[in-house]
């Protein structure tokens, strides 16, 4: 930066300028398209964010006024979108009961309960139905009418009989006979043409699909004729209705349900709540239940301890094995190092999905290779301690090549003269390793060990694919013996009886805090290592 003055456009070639403006234009266009889609979906937050990004890009890159931000802006935007936003969203969710059965807003839930309660009237007729509009009007705006037909009972008479079908026209006012004059029927008995009406095809009527779905021809006693399909109508009745003043639901047989903690529950306390509930703010309930609910609390503590032990043991074992191999292959006397080194990288190069599943099959007590070859009969995945050992063994296999790589790199950067100096001072090989090589090595790989610890602390993939957190305690099928906090949170959120995403978010936040505190502490430690230099 210092060698050239920050002069404008002096040395900027034309293609760079062109590319710059092209990229600016593309970003703005992209944001415009995004907001257009978001407006359609009614998502104003996205519109705001897209507009903000577009403006920020224009200000920084187009006007040159905020040019000092040019390096930071992309990073800031990505950081906000992909880090800050999920965190903020998780925190917000942690204070709600969001989850299965509580995924709607209250208005949606009220509407859903009523829509689900529409039942056909017992022994009522079913009609053939055509959706129609008054002739000459446009489909988008016209008042809808349902042209209905039903097989006429013996001995019915009237001017609305045609080919054994009784014809009606249903509007929002009610049901009227449809004079049969000039009406033609289609093969399935529905009205195909009627004077004064334009009969819509299924595709045409779909333009008003929502209106058709809500359309009900009122009948006496509160029932209505509603569309069942595009060609059939039924007589139905909403059997559960909402009373806005009292905030209660009343079913047709008189049971009253009151709103309580995100569900409509029976007023008299008898029987189950209505199935569809809504999201509600629950304050600190999720957090307090982690610490007060006895199964959760004991489970949480147990999982937490294993969650500390697992990454420590994993990092330790992989580092020791990786470092020993690195020292071995760093020896100048060894021939064919390139080949060995490439072979050692292989476990690292295979995707964890493949490796973990293969290991899981190898650990099978009866059919697995490990018991077969060793002649043992260990219930690897069924007993707590063997299962933990299995997890560590698999992670050793998966993790040592990484440690081997970074140690090899670090070892090669340690100058030979310090080792020579040590041997001149009379240090043996072990002493040299311990007092010279190791400290220098740890300076280089220390931060990476911390990063590896943090990664293994949340090593979801391995646990999920290898043991799934199993084996479980007999009394509690939520808390597994090899569970990490993150797999535990996943089970609560996704796999438990009724996924409770609010609670899982609360657990995630706690994990976040724990990882944060631990990492901070360890980075402090590794800083101390650096001072060796």
């Amino acid at each position, binding site marked *: 930066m210092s060698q050239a003055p920050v002069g*404008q*456009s002096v040395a900027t070639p034309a293609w*760079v300028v062109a*590319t*710059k403006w092209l*990229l600016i234009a593309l970003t703005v266009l992209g944001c415009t398209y995004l907001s257009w889609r978001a407006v359609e979906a009614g998502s104003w937050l996205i519109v705001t964010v897209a507009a903000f990004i577009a403006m920020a890009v224009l200000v920084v890159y187009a006007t040159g006024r905020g040019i000092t931000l*040019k*390096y*930071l802006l*992309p*990073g800031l935007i990505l950081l906000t979108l992909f880090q800050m936003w999920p*965190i903020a969203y*998780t925190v917000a969710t942690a204070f709600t009961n969001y989850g*299965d*059965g509580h*995924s709607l807003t209250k208005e949606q839930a009220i509407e859903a309960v009523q829509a*689900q309660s529409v039942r*056909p009237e017992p022994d009522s007729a079913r009609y053939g139905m055509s*959706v129609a509009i008054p002739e000459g009007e446009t489909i988008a705006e016209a008042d809808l009418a349902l042209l209905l037909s039903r097989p006429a009972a013996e001995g019915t008479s009237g001017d609305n009989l045609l080919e054994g079908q009784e014809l009606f026209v249903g509007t929002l006012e009610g049901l009227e006979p449809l004079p049969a004059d000039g009406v033609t029927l289609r093969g399935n008995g529905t009205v195909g043409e009627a004077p004064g009406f334009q009969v819509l095809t*299924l*595709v045409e*009527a*779909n*333009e008003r*699909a*929502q209106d*058709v*779905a809500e359309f009900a021809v009122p009948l006496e006693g509160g029932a209505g004729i509603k569309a*069942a*399909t*595009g*060609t*059939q109508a039924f007589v139905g009745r909403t059997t559960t209705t909402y009373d806005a003043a009292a905030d209660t639901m009343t079913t047709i047989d008189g049971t009253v349900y009151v709103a309580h903690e995100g569900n409509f529950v029976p007023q008299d306390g008898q029987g*189950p*709540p209505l*199935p*569809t509930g809504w999201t509600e703010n629950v304050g600190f309930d999720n957090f307090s239940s982690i610490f007060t609910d006895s199964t959760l609390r004991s489970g949480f503590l147990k999982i937490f301890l294993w969650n500390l032990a697992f990454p420590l043991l994993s990092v330790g074992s992989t580092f020791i094995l990786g470092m020993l191999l690195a020292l071995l292959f760093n020896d100048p006397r060894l021939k064919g190092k390139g080949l060995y080194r490439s072979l050692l990288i292989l476990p690292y190069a295979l995707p964890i999905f493949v490796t973990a599943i293969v290991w899981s099959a190898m650990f*099978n007590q*009866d059919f697995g290779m490990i018991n077969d070859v060793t002649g043992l009969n260990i219930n690897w995945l069924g007993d707590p301690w063997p299962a933990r050992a299995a997890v560590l063994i698999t992670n050793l296999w998966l993790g040592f090549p*990484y440690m081997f*790589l970074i140690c090899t790199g670090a070892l090669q950067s340690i100058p030979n003269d310090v080792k020579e100096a040590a041997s001149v001072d009379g240090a043996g090989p072990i002493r040299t390793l311990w007092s010279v090589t190791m400290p220098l090595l740890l300076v280089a790989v220390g931060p990476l060990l911390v*990063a590896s610890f943090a990664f293994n*602390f*949340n090593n979801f993939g391995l646990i999920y694919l290898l043991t799934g957190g*199993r*084996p*479980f305690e*007999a009394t*509690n099928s939520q808390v597994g013996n090899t569970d990490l906090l993150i797999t535990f*949170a996943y089970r609560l959120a*996704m796999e*438990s*009886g*009724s996924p409770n*995403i609010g609670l*899982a978010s609360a657990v*995630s936040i706690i994990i976040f805090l724990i990882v944060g505190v631990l990492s901070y502490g360890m980075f402090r430690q*590794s*800083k101390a290592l*650096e001072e060796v230099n």
Partner: protein
Amino acid sequence: MKRTTGAIAMAGITALLLTACGGDTESDDPTTPAGGEEESEAPADDAGEATDEGEAAEETAAEGEGGDGAEETAGPPAASDGTSLVIWADDLRAAAIEPLTETFTADTGVEVTVQIVAQEKLREQFKDAVGQGAGPDVTIGAHDWLGELVQNNVVAPVQIAPEVAEQFVPESIEAVTFEGQVYAVPYSVESLALIRNADLAPEVPASMEELVTDGEALVEAGDTELVLAQELGKEGNAYSMYPYLAAYGPGIFPLLEEGGFDGSQSILDSPETIQGAEKLAWLGEVGALSTNQDASNVIPNFIDGKAAYMVSGPWAIDQITEGGINYAIDPIPDFEDGGETSPFLGVQAFYVSAESLNPQIAQTFVQEYVPTEEIQVGMFEADRRPPALSAAAEQVQAQDPDVEAWATAAEGGLPMPNIPQMNAVWGPLGKATADIVDGADAAERMGTAQTEVAAALGGK
């Protein structure tokens, strides 16, 4: 330390395109190359993944928009153009349903788009996508999803005509009914049955006891290695073990007089269910059941001739036929003391999305075209599950003797509960079945499972 963070941040940022166009000529900033080297290892594979997974809770929300299937249907095909019907199905059934929609298109002029969604993700993605107001008009799925789908209001009621409903096997309509409302149109009914390698075991065992004796004899003679092949696994499998658990009573929930299960209480520790659980213990003791048998090895073991008997469903038949096994299908045998094994029935059905923008078109398709022999037989040919429409079932019985055998095996079975409470049962009960087969005391272990399920049910 600060230097490293700064270097990594710089490296990440310089990688971004826009910076190249900031009006500066290429700088020789010394931190850039150094940062580039450091960055290449740690954050790329460690830190990056770790942070991603920290937000597991976010994954559902993201899937609704970004999941493999959801992406396209969130756009025009599912919505607003008003001329297209979008159906989600897994790969096998998508291939089957696509040609079967031609009649519908010819009759109505409505184009049908069939989209493949991975089977194990379909339920979740449908729930999430529709919850976001996107998703398909129609999805093919299992009936036991129903309670959960209704809870989240993602499926619309299907006001099926009574005379159409009567054309189905009664259990299949019962299976898609929730709190008195029908929510889907079924196309197949399946259950577990005893599949026998007729070369190794020519005789149908009259009882479970006889099956075990036969199986043991075959193992002793060295013809096979396993008495019986049946899925269980370390985590247990309540579906697979239900035929035994329900041999003496309804098993999990008490039956309601009007049909269906009473989800407000569970009866895992009832004397009848414990009697069934003791049979599990016995089958585990004699080695007929084992927690080391799971989805990954049951069918292969049977095909390799390592077991003469297997308890499985219609989905296994394709692999068995490919393996060239001479097989026969019979009901799971009863116990000699009068316990009648009774499998769960599973029903596959067409659901209509509650957020469909083409509700009448979707309803027309599921109510007027799915209950036709053309579609029901066509779907049977894809996944060999016996049709739910009686007429279609009769038609395929004539071509395929297996279908009658499956129907016999399903007799007396009850549809798997579709109430959402069932979700609280699968885990604890499954785990209990694994422990009992591994030697835990049946009565005691069912008691703890009951306590856990009761707590989960009571807590809601």
